[in-house]
C-alpha cells in the first residue's frame, strides 16, 4: 500500500528517566499536511516524545526521520534547521519587548533593524493563517491567546513547516480555543504539518485528522479521527471505561458559611486584582468561579485563605468577621485550601507522611510539647494513604516522586480529612489525567454532601458546569455575574469571561 508522504517518523523511541520509562519503543508517523493529535494522560510520555523531536531530550534508543531523511537532532537549533517548530505550554517571550522584536529575537540576520524585515512576513502570516497580531504591541499587553499567536508566528518565521503545539488550549477562553482550532486547520490546508499534544478529547475532534494515543509511555493506537468516538478514545487513553457524568445528589442547603462583601485585594505588582467582589456560599453548596487565569481568581482565593491582605471589604465565616486573619487562625476555624500551584501546598523533598501533617504538625497527637510524635504521624499517613488511595511506594517516600494525580490526592486528603467548613479549591484538576480528575471531582462532591461550603476556581468550564450549584464569572477582578448552574451554558459563560456583564442571581 502506498503510504502518503511522511513529515515525521519516529521509530522505536525509548527514553528512560531514573525509575521511569517515559517512552517505551514508541512509533509515530505523521503525514505531511495533516493535523495529528497526540493524546494521553499526564505522564503518558507525550511531551517527552515531542521534546525528543525538538532536540531538547535525546532518545536512548530509536530513530527519527524527518521528511524521509534519517536525522539526529542534537538541539532545538537542529530541529529548527529541519523545519520543526515547537510552541511550549509556558510561553517564552520577553514581556517588555514588542511582538516584532520577539519574533526576530536570536536570529543572526539581518543584523540591523531585523524587526523591519519581519513586518512583511507578519502581514503574510496574518492573511494566510488568520494569525492576526499587532507587530508593535508589547507582549505584556497581550492576552494569552495573542501571545500564543506570537509564539506560532515565531516558529513559522524560522521556517517551520512542522509545528508542535504542547497543550495549546490550557490558557485560552472558549472563543480563543475556537480561533486556534481554525488557525490550525488553515495551516494544515496550506500544507503545514501540525502535531498537537492534548489530554482533552473535544480538541481531538475539533481539529485533528488522525490521533495517536499514548498510555504509560507506549503507543496504544493511531486512528483516523473520523472513525473513532470520544468513548473509545477515553478508554484507550485511560485503559478502562470512564464516567462522563458525575452523579450529583440533591443537597439541602445549610446556613451561609462564607460571606464576602465588597472585597478588594492587590496583586503581586500592587495593582488592584480583586475589585469589590461580593458573594456568599451556603453549607452543602459548590460555588464555581469561572474565568481566564489572571482575572483575580488566585488573589481572591489567597485572600480568603489569609495569604494575601484585603485592602477593603469584609469576609465573614459563619457570621464572624475573619477579614485579614492569619492563615493559621483561618485553618483552625475550618478553612481548607487547595492551592493552584501544587508546589505551594507541598514540600517536595519531605516525605508523604510529613506533607500530610504540614498544617497540623504542631497539634496533638502529632506533637507533644515541642517533640513530634513520629508514630502518630506515621499512623495518620497510613490511614489517609489508604482512605484516599494515594499510590506511593511508602509513607517515607519524598512527595516529589509521586505523580501529579497522587500529589493532588495527598493534598486533598490533608485538606478534607479534618472536616472543613469551607473548602477553597483552585484548579484542583489542572494537569491531571482522567482517572485522577474523576476522583478529585468525586471528592469535591462528597464534601458538598457532607455539608461543606466549596469554592471551586477552575478554568475548565466543563468542570465548573458539572460540579457547581451556582457559577460566578470573574473578569478584570470583578464578578460579571452569578448564574444558577441550570441556567448556565458554555456560550453565556464564555461571553462573561470576555467581560460582558450579566445579572447576579
Amino acid at each position, binding site marked *: 500500500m502506498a503510504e502518503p508522504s511522511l513529515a515525521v517518523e519516529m521509530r522505536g523511541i525509548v527514553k528512560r*528517566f*531514573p*525509575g*521511569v520509562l517515559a517512552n517505551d519503543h514508541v512509533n509515530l508517523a505523521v503525514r505531511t499536511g495533516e493535523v495529528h493529535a497526540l493524546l494521553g494522560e499526564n505522564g503518558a510520555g507525550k511531551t517527552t516524545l515531542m521534546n525528543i523531536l525538538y532536540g531538547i*531530550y*535525546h532518545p536512548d534508543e530509536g*530513530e527519527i526521520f524527518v*521528511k*524521509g*531523511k*534519517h*536525522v*539526529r537532532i*542534537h538541539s532545538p537549533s*537542529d530541529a529548527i534547521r529541519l523545519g520543526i517548530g515547537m510552541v511550549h505550554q509556558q510561553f517564552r517571550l520577553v514581556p517588555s519587548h514588542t511582538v516584532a522584536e520577539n519574533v526576530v529575537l536570536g536570529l543572526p540576520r539581518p543584523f540591523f533593524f531585523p524587526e523591519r524585515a519581519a513586518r512583511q512576513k507578519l502581514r503574510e502570516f496574518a492573511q494566510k493563517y488568520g494569525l492576526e497580531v499587532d507587530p508593535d504591541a508589547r507582549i505584556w499587553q497581550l492576552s494569552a491567546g495573542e501571545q500564543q499567536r506570537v509564539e506560532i508566528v515565531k516558529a513559522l518565521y524560522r521556517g517551520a513547516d512542522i509545528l508542535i503545539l504542547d497543550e495549546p488550549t490550557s490558557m485560552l477562553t472558549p472563543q480563543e480555543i475556537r480561533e486556534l482550532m481554525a488557525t490550525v486547520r488553515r495551516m494544515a490546508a496550506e500544507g503545514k504539518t501540525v502535531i498537537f499534544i492534548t489530554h482533552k478529547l473535544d480538541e481531538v475532534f475539533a481539529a485533528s485528522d488522525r490521533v495517536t494515543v499514548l498510555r504509560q509511555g507506549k503507543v496504544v493506537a493511531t486512528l483516523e479521527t473520523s472513525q473513532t468516538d470520544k468513548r473509545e478514545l477515553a478508554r484507550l487513553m485511560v485503559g478502562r471505561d470512564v464516567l462522563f457524568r458525575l452523579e450529583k445528589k440533591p443537597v439541602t442547603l445549610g446556613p451561609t458559611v462564607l460571606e464576602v462583601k465588597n472585597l478588594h485585594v492587590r496583586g503581586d505588582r500592587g495593582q488592584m486584582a480583586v475589585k469589590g467582589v461580593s458573594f456568599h456560599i451556603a453549607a452543602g453548596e459548590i460555588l464555581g468561579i469561572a474565568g481566564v487565569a489572571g482575572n483575580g481568581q488566585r488573589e481572591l482565593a489567597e485572600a480568603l*485563605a*489569609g*495569604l494575601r491582605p484585603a485592602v477593603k471589604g469584609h469576609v465573614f465565616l459563619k457570621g464572624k468577621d475573619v477579614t485579614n486573619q*492569619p*492563615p*493559621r*487562625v483561618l*485553618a483552625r476555624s475550618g478553612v481548607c*485550601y487547595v*492551592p493552584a500551584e501544587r*508546589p*505551594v*501546598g*507541598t*514540600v*517536595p*523533598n*519531605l516525605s508523604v507522611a*510529613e506533607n500530610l501533617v*504540614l*498544617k497540623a*504538625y*504542631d497539634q496533638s497527637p502529632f*506533637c507533644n510539647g*515541642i*517533640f*513530634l510524635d*513520629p508514630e502518630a504521624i506515621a499512623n495518620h499517613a497510613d490511614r489517609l494513604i489508604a482512605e484516599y488511595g494515594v499510590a506511593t511506594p511508602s509513607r517515607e517516600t*519524598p512527595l*516529589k*516522586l509521586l505523580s501529579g494525580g497522587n500529589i493532588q490526592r495527598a493534598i486533598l486528603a490533608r485538606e478534607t480529612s479534618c472536616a472543613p467548613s469551607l473548602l477553597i479549591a483552585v484548579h484542583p484538576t489542572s494537569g491531571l489525567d482522567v482517572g485522577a480528575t474523576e476522583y478529585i471531582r468525586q471528592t469535591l462532591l462528597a464534601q458538598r454532601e457532607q455539608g461543606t461550603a466549596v469554592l471551586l476556581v477552575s478554568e475548565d468550564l466543563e468542570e465548573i458546569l458539572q460540579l457547581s450549584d451556582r457559577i460566578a464569572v470573574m473578569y478584570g477582578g470583578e464578578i460579571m455575574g452569578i448564574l444558577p448552574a441550570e441556567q448556565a451554558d458554555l456560550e453565556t459563560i464564555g461571553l462573561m469571561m470576555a467581560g460582558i456583564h450579566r445579572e447576579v442571581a
Partner: protein
Amino acid sequence: MNWVSIRLEKRLDTPRWLNAVTPVLSVLAALVFIAVLFYILGVNPLVAYRRIFMGAFGSLYGLSETLTKAIPLILCGAGLAISFRARVYNIGAEGQLLVGAIAATWVALFVPGIPDPLRLPAMFVAGALAGALWALIPGLLKAKLRQDEVLTSLMLVYIASELVNHLVYGPWKGAQEWGFPYTDKFPPSAIIPHLGTTRIHYPTLIIAVLAAILAYYFIQRTRWGFEIRVTGENPEAARYAGMNYLRTVLLVIGISGALAGIAGVGEVAGIHGRLRYPQGISPGYGFTAIIVAWLARLNPLAVLLTGFLISGLLVGGDAIQLALNLPAATVHLFNGVILLFVLSGDLFTRYRVRIEFPARMAPAVAVRPGVEVKE
C-alpha cells in the same frame, strides 16, 4: 557536531548513596587539584600530603591540636547547619564568635561579685547571648526588611573585628601588657580547664559535641525543626501552612549565633586566657565552619566528623607551611578550593551527566532520502 557531547540532565531523585559519596569525591577532586598547585610550587604533592596527614593525625600532639581546633569548627558548623537548613545564609559566624569572646572577656575581667564556680558558666551564657544578639541583627533585617543576610552578616564580621581591635588597643588594654594589643590575663576562675598537658579545653568540647547531637534532634524531631525544614525546602509552603517566618529566621540565626558565641568563649577562656587582636583569637573559624557545614550536607551529626577532618587540614596545613617553606596563604587556598569543589560537586546530586559519542558509534545524519539506516 561530530564531537563527543556532554550534557547535563536533571535527576528526578538523588539516591542516598550518592548524597554520601559526592562530598567525599569532591574533596578528593579538590586534593588532586591542589596537588597540581603543589607541583607548580615545586613541592612533591605526595610528600606534602603525607606531612599534612602526619602533622594532623600522626602524633598525639597533632591529634590533640586537631581536636582543639575542631571545637570552634564543630560549634559554628552545627549552628550554621541549622541556619542553612532554613535557607538563612548566616555568613557571619566569625563576627558572632568575636562578640562572644568580647562578652566572655567582659564577664571575666570587669564584672565583680560573681562567685568563682559561677564565673565560667556566666561567661558561656554571656558569650552565647552576645553571639545570638549579634546574629539577630541580620536576622531581623532579613525577615523584616528583606535585606540579604549574606551581605549584612558578613559586614557585621568586620564591625565585630574592629570592636575587638578598639577594645584591645583602647579601653581594655591590659596594664601589664606593655605594647601588645592584649587585655589583662583572665583570673584562674575564668580559665577553662585543659585535658592533661594538651590545649584541649574539654568542657567546651563536651558542649560542642552535645550541641551537634542536640541540633540534629532539634531539626529532625521537634516542631520547630519541622518548621525549619519546611521553610528551607519551600518557603511558600511554610507560608501556606501558616508558619511564622519571622520566628523561624530569628530562631535559626539566633541559635547559630549563640553557638558561634560559645566558640568565642572557648577560644579566649580555653586557649588564650585573654582577649587579643581578632586574628589572634580566631584564624577564621567562623568562615571555615561554612565549609564544615556544607561538607556535612547540613547534617549536624556529620558536622562532628567534618569539623574534625577540616581541623586536621588546618593543623596539617600549618605543619607544612613551616616544614616546606610554603606561603601562609596555603591553608586558605586549601579551604577555598575544597569549598569550591564541594559546592560544585552538589551539581552531580541534582544532575546526571550524559556523554554522547559521535557517528562512530551510531551512523547517522543525512543518508539518501527514504533509505533506512541499519546499524
